[in-house]
């Protein structure tokens, strides 16, 4: 039995399907991510779990308890909102204390918990500040402390990092993850950012158009995307529609790639880091002469776009100290694609 179990959930807004056919089981203590583009239904499901909206059909269980029709305020589910929703007329401590006052905790206990969670999110000394005096990152910490202070059974995070700048987002990512590990709290995290999903999650559910299309660990999803949408959405990829038969994928009249399997499908996906530069002498399969189109240097890696006849491939080469390719735009090169790294996809 999972900590949160969604069975056959469907939710409509008017005639529009927000999500349908949702079956998920989230384990105790798991960091579980809903990943997908905006409008895919991931936030709706989060709001269903929080109890802000009710499903048209299906059930939601929290542990053994059916909470489908339970009011939001009785669910003991903590939530961090995208815009934090901190009460602007209260101080930092006032916000954190709010849920505890509702729970009618004693003054002493409230003070202890406020201190505990203020410290946990690194905001000691900020207790009496007004919300308007805080930076985005600090507000985020208050929102987190506020929802943790009531010691909820499940923590829901609705794109909490999307309003932070890039550097801070990186830091909060690891802080959030280690905090979750330390507390062991079941956490559901909603994001459209694949990096966040891959770096933080124990498991990821990928959503598209109101449906959950794949669930798995980040490694599984990255290595074995179920379709072209997942392949494109998770990580960077070279995706081609191809004519696939007898272990060969024809990308065009001129370019055919040999495959490891005899599987059939309509697309092939090749990660840019699975293509390498080679030489004419290389006698492995899938070595092609190519011409360098563009080169993009981004510090830790270099991205090349090369043309094999009429087909463009993107390659990512890690920028190690031994990198001495000295490749220039317009140069004639050879590329090699490992057979086992090619994924054949049905849709």
């Amino acid at each position, binding site marked *: 039995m999972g900590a949160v179990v969604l069975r056959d959930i469907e939710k409509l807004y008017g005639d529009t399907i927000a999500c349908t056919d949702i079956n998920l089981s989230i384990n105790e203590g798991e960091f579980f991510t809903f990943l997908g583009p905006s409008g895919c239904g991931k936030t709706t499901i989060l709001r269903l779990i929080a109890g802000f909206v009710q499903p048209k059909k299906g059930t939601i269980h929290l542990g053994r308890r059916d909470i489908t029709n339970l009011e939001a*305020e009785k669910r003991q589910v903590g*939530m961090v909102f995208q815009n934090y929703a901190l*009460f602007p*007329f209260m101080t930092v401590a006032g916000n954190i204390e*709010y849920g505890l006052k*509702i729970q009618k905790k004693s003054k002493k206990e409230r003070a202890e918990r406020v201190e505990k969670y203020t410290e946990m999110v690194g905001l000691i000394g900020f207790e009496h500040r007004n919300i308007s005096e805080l930076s985005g990152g600090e507000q985020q910490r208050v929102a987190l402390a506020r*929802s943790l202070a*009531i010691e909820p059974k499940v923590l829901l995070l609705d794109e909490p990092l999307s309003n932070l700048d890039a550097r801070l987002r990186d830091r909060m990512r690891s802080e959030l993850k280690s905090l979750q590990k330390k507390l062991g709290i079941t956490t559901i995290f909603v994001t459209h950012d694949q990096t966040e999903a891959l770096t933080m999650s124990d498991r990821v559910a990928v959503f598209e158009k109101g449906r959950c299309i794949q669930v798995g660990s980040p490694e599984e999803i990255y290595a074995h995307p179920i379709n072209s949408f997942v392949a494109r959405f998770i990580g960077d990829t070279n995706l081609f529609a191809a004519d696939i038969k007898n272990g060969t994928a024809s990308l065009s009249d001129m370019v055919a790639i040999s495959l490891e399997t005899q599987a059939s499908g309509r697309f092939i996906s090749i990660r840019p880091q699975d293509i390498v530069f080679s030489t004419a002498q290389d006698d492995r399969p899938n070595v092609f002469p190519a011409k360098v189109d563009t080169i993009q240097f981004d510090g830790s890696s270099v991205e090349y776009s090369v043309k094999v006849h009429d087909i463009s491939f993107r390659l990512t080469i890690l920028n190690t100290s031994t990198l001495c390719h000295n490749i220039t735009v317009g140069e004639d090169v050879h590329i090699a694609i490992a057979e086992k790294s090619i994924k054949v996809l049905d849709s």
Partner: protein
Amino acid sequence: MDIMPNHKKLFGTLGVVLLLWFLVGYILYPALKTVEVSLTDHGTISLIHYSRFFTSDASIAPLTNSIVLGLLTVIVCGLIGTALAFFVHYFDFPGKNIVDKLLLMPLILPGIVIVFAFVQLYGESGLVTKSIEWLFGLESKPYSFSGLKGILFVHAYTQYVYFYISVSIAIRHIDYSVIESARNLGAAKTKIFTSVILPFITPALISSAIITFISGIGSFTAPSIIGGGYRVLTTQILLSKANNYMEVAATQVVILTGISLFLFSVFRLYEKKAVFTSSVKGVSIQVVTIKNPLIRFLMLSTAGILIVTILLPVFAIILLSFVESETLMMNIFPQEFTCENYLDIFTSARKFAPFLNSIVMALLASLLGLVIAIPSSYLIVKTQIKLKWLIEILVMLPWAMPASAIAINIINAYNTPNIFSFNSVLVGTFILLPLGYFVRSIPLMVKTTSISFQNLNETYIEASKSLGASRFQTFTRIVLPMISPGLVAGFLLVFVRSIGEYTLSVFLYTPSNKPVSIAVVNGIFEYNIGLAMAYGALLILVTSALSFLISKFSTALSR
């Protein structure tokens, strides 16, 4: 909310029906009643009042005068307000913030008090007039402060504020990087003004011009006190009413309201279309610091003169409130000072009554305003009910109604019993005046309370629920604290606008509810200037104190 029990739905519908019943009954029905009266002659439907109006020179002249007054008010106030906005927000000089605050003062001063302050300063025996005569040894008065010139002078002081506020906002929204890029593209200073700055402030200019015109043709206080032979529609309406030609008054009201309503619709359409704010991430405009000492000196002097000009009327009222009225008749400049006038007001029940009446009536108007504005703005901002558009139109309609029109409408609607007044005649009763104050201020009040509801993001309520708070706890601990600054600000705003109100008061007061503004006028006409000014000073004291509170609550609102 997804699930709403049936009994709650029923209560909701009942509430909406009650609200609409009230809005229709006290805003729309009176206006329609006036239209009906204007189309009635001796009990039959007739256009005779309109044909008489448009064929008689005697009634066309006030209409033309009103329009001329409106246009001239727009020009004078446009020039003054825009110039002041640029002066304060484009340049840097010491005392800038004080000047900015002071320039908003005419908003809170009761019109009738300003008019008399002007009379005491610039009138025939005014302090400034006499000082000039004395300084230059003139035999006769140097200028005449009556008629169109006088009205315009008062309007210039009281009505530049619309231009000042909206142009100031526009200037602060000018994206400085656009100016920089224009300079980078080689535009000269004049070119920058015409091609960048002017387009930025044009929407502000056009909308202020419309609002100023509406308030100019609706102005009653200045024309009635210092207009002299310059007759305008609003004063003619009172004359018709006083002579009991209610059908003529109704016709004049319909024509005046028609013009206002037309322009107001244009304004609303324009407001919806025009883009008032620029790019979100723009750099705000940088104030220009003048280095040339001569220009600096000139600017400082201008700022000084501005402060003096704005404060002079207030100063005059306070000064004269401490003067014994008899001594003022004999001396040009006050010689002896006394607290007698104030003691009079606070010791004589008869003299205190108008002040008390105004406080009570302003309170009633504000309370009624709250009761109506809270559900109205809630329905407008937070719900998607079908009749939302109707509520919005009804609460905004009084924007387009001059006070004299509101008064005539109320008289026409409530001089006979009807279902909206629970089958009683309201004309001649105490409640009529608070009702009028309420109608006049409801648009402003709804605007203020709407901001509260706009700030009240749904996620605050959800956050509170997710932390375990019940509906009731969420309402008392989150919703109420969040909307109350706006509600309090709206309440005080109506109070401030009502306590010294003059136009509606003239039309609707009875011996039982004589307000302080009427007491001021009576005081003046009984040559009891000291007493009148003491009333005025008390009014200024109350309105300034409350306005200070309003600004506090408004800051809390924008936090």
